[in-house]
């Protein structure tokens, strides 16, 4: 281990190569055990819909925890002080919990589905399906890009290799083990990766805490914090980080195919247990890692090059021993790999089921071999695209919030489509497009917010608060409670929010996306006389591939056959 120019400890080039070879080699080796000589197209997308609790909960947790969320939580801790990690991690965790009742409904309506968009095809038609599928692809591509950026930045900071070499190592490693077995490889390797991640979190947080001075740090470093940063009830943290994130992650959970894919894979009776475990696992891990940002703030650490994305690697390189620095590298690589492989298999499923299976092949005539080929080619192309975009090094936290808010426009129309018989394809499509048209100028402050415009935006944003809270209540308690919660939320926040919310562009943009899509969708549907029969979905969505999976035969099996 050698210190670099900035006084940070680095791992030697060969140490990094050995760790990466060990990590990706071990992961690749695991996938050989589940490899099929003749892979089944449905198995490639959902692993047969009967994955057990241990693997599915591990996979759900690992997928939800991405390297970028670790960096973003620490950034939140550093920027907003002691409540910062809560306003990142707690809301993200609760969203896993809030999404579970919807997950149960989706699974009951379409037990054999592969993607959410595939269900929308049967429910509404092509435009709704392709809108959701397109947003899933964009989201997964951004997710892969940000994970590659996180990996490249980490390797550049901790080793003699540069950023470009780092992203190429990471991209190639993930593609190698994901390519052949798809989703099955993704969930199995997630299970191993979560052990590396969580194990590292358990060790690294206390070590950094004591290395920076332990309890004394809170006395000597207290002057580094503003009153807002010192407060556990910081309004700055809530309005700038927590509130936009609450709105964004509900959308993220609905709009993200990686979560939907795990929902379709887990055994139906284990959905609740899986989601609850993932909620606790994600929350504790991400809030815990966010504490590194809080510690950095107390310790007076200044992020390298003023970039808060460097904060976590910088803390590790400053305070960890060589062995723990290696463990830290493995933790981040595991976090980004588990999410990136999930995104690869999500994109491949969308291309297989939504693009080829339902839009290119004739109904009931999709060729499983062609599907698998398309799935694998998608992974290669997506990795190449992720590497290309990663070379532009974008701000990770901004990307996360932007995509989440973009998905906000989809949340109500998607959820309503699974419960309300009256929602039509036209209403779905128009409501999403109108919501996006309203969201973008508010989010990027393209229009002056003075006078009536600001008030209109505030009113819509206040309705958006009611929509978000109402949807959360709806999942657990039904329509009646949801309406009460929404009404109370709107009435309670209106006096404070109107005339004020438009100053927070990220938050009001997200809320406007929710409210506009809800209002447009509702008013276009409530007088609709036609009722959709949800049983149709179950009847029309099934397996694409009825071939038996063929395992690589073991020597033992061959001998038995011979005998």
């Amino acid at each position, binding site marked *: 281990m050698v210190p670099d120019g900035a006084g940070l400890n680095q791992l030697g080039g060969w140490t990094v190569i050995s760790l990466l070879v060990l990590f990706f080699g071990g992961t690749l080796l695991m996938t050989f*055990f589940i490899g099929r000589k003749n892979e089944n197209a449905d198995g490639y997308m959902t*692993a047969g819909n009967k994955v057990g*609790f*241990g693997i599915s909960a591990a996979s759900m*947790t690992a997928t939800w925890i991405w390297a970028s969320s670790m960096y973003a939580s620490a950034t939140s801790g550093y920027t907003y002080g*002691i409540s910062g990690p809560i306003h990142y991690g707690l809301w993200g965790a609760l969203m896993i919990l809030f999404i579970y009742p919807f997950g149960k409904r989706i699974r009951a309506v379409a037990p054999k589905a592969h993607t959410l968009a595939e269900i929308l095809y049967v429910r509404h038609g092509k435009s709704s399906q392709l809108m959701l599928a397109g947003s899933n692809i964009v989201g997964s591509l951004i997710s892969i890009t940000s994970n590659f950026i996180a990996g490249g930045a980490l390797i550049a900071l901790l080793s003699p290799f540069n950023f470009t070499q780092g992203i190429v190592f990471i991209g190639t490693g993930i593609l190698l083990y994901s390519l052949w077995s798809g989703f099955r490889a993704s969930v199995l390797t997630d299970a191993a990766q979560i052990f590396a991640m*969580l194990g590292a*979190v358990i060790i690294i*947080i206390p070590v950094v805490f004591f290395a920076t001075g332990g309890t004394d740090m809170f006395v000597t470093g207290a002057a580094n914090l503003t009153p807002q940063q010192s407060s556990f009830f910081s309004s700055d943290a809530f309005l700038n980080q927590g509130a936009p994130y609450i709105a964004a992650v509900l959308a993220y959970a609905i709009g993200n195919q990686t979560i939907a894919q795990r929902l379709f894979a887990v055994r139906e009776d284990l959905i609740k247990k899986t989601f609850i*475990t993932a909620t606790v696992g994600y929350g504790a891990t991400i809030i815990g890692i966010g504490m590194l940002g809080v510690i950095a703030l107390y310790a007076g650490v200044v992020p390298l090059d003023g970039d808060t994305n460097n904060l976590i690697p910088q803390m590790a390189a400053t305070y960890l021993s060589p062995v723990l620095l290696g463990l830290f590298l493995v933790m981040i690589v595991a976090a980004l790999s588990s999410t990136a492989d999930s995104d690869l298999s999500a994109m491949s499923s969308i291309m297989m089921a939504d693009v080829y299976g339902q839009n290119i092949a004739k109904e009931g005539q999709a060729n499983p071999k062609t599907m698998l080929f398309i799935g694998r080619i998608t992974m290669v192309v997506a990795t190449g695209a992720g590497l290309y975009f990663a070379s532009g090094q974008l701000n990770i936290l901004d990307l996360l919030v932007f995509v989440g808010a973009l998905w906000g426009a989809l949340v109500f129309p998607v959820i309503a489509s699974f419960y309300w018989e009256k929602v039509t394809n036209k209403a779905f499509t128009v409501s999403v497009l109108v919501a996006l048209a309203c969201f973008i100028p508010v989010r990027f402050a393209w229009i002056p917010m003075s006078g009536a415009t600001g008030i209109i935006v505030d009113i819509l944003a206040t309705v958006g608060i009611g929509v978000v809270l109402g949807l959360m209540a709806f999942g657990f308690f039904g329509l009646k409670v949801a309406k009460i919660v929404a009404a109370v939320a709107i009435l309670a926040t209106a006096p404070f929010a109107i005339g004020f919310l438009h100053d927070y562009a990220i938050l009001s943009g997200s809320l406007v996306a929710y409210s506009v899509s809800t209002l447009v969708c509702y008013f276009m549907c409530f007088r609709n006389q036609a009722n959709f029969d949800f049983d149709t979905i179950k009847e029309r969505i099934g397996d694409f591939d009825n071939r038996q999976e063929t395992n690589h035969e073991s020597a033992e099996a061959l001998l038995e056959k011979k005998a």
Partner: protein
Amino acid sequence: MSVFLLSLYVLIWPVIVAGVLFVLGRGLWHEIREAKREGRSLI
């Protein structure tokens, strides 16, 4: 917030993570044994 509470606030998360790790490990162990007993692939 007092120094004690701040320290507890920082250090409680690894403890919870350890609990989750135990639950996941136990679940996984049961599934591996079950798959072995039934002679099928884990996934």
